[in-house]
């Protein structure tokens, strides 16, 4: 993991570049970001200052990160069928989640961080639900005879008005159904438009 640049503007710029270059191989992307970073540092040393004006001037001359990434290779972000399938399956519970996670992981349209965030959004409620079942035991619910469930669950559990689910569990269950679509929306928002293959100088 590269070290974060101490200057906030530069760090933001490099992050944008990294996202835009998501379609390059990891080695090539890391190298590109390192080269641009060296360039910025050289430029700031030359300017003899690290104030905002100096930073903005160097970044302005470099041009938009998206343009640099576009010059480096095929646009990473053209959402192909793989990304579409990944987002649709991720929105479907259970089997869809598994397939969705595999497809998201296989895609080159997202950065590692975007993949982790997307997958985490999709699966977090389900994981919480699974953990709560493990903690409480699978036999919990209103139809459980005897007191084991009563001892471990909040009292709403036992009136059975919501089929054995308390409000918290209900939220988590509903959440796990909505999480997939939310993750799909997040991931689609991270897909960038295919950048124009503009030349070195766009007059």
């Amino acid at each position, binding site marked *: 993991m590269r070290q974060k640049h101490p200057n906030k503007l530069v760090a933001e710029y490099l992050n944008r570049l990294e996202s835009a270059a998501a379609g390059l191989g990891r080695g090539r992307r890391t190298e590109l970001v390192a080269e641009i970073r*060296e*360039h910025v540092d050289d430029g700031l040393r030359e300017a003899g200052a690290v104030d905002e004006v100096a930073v903005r001037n160097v970044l302005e001359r470099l041009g938009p990160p998206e343009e640099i990434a576009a010059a480096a290779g095929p646009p990473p972000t053209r959402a192909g069928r793989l990304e579409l399938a990944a987002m649709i399956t991720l929105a479907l519970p259970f089997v869809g989640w598994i397939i969705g996670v595999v497809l998201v992981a296989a895609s080159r349209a997202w950065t590692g961080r975007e993949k982790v965030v997307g997958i985490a959004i999709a699966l977090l409620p389900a994981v919480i639900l699974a953990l709560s079942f493990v903690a409480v035991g699978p036999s919990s619910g209103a139809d459980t005879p005897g007191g084991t469930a009563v001892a471990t669950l909040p009292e709403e559990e036992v009136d059975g008005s919501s089929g054995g689910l308390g409000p918290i569990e209900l939220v988590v269950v509903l959440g796990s159904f909505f999480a997939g679509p939310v993750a799909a929306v997040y991931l689609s928002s991270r897909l960038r438009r295919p950048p124009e293959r503009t030349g070195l*100088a766009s*007059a």
Partner: protein
Amino acid sequence: MEPGGARNSLSQLRRGAVEYCVLALLRDGERYGFELVRKLSEVDGLVTSEGTIYPLLTRLRRDRLVTTFWRESETGPPRRYYQLTDGGREALAGFTVEWARFRDGVDGLLKDEEEQ
């Protein structure tokens, strides 16, 4: 031709030519990235986004027209230097001849058009 189309083909011309400008800048010795990029961007109308030179440098290296090496710097961390290979030198010599013919041909036509 639409104006957009003309601009696009001009930028393609530039893209092709800039590669050889890089090679030309390295003819007399190695340079580091920042130096190279600044030299190029000082030429009017050649480059507007300095950052796009870096992917081009990578391409030149992949095509073995340049090689890179690291050298200590007096003012900061080590720098990556670019150097022409024999292949790069040959490519530059070839382009220099072709470019002169191309330029003269185009100039000739453009002038004729003006005079009419």
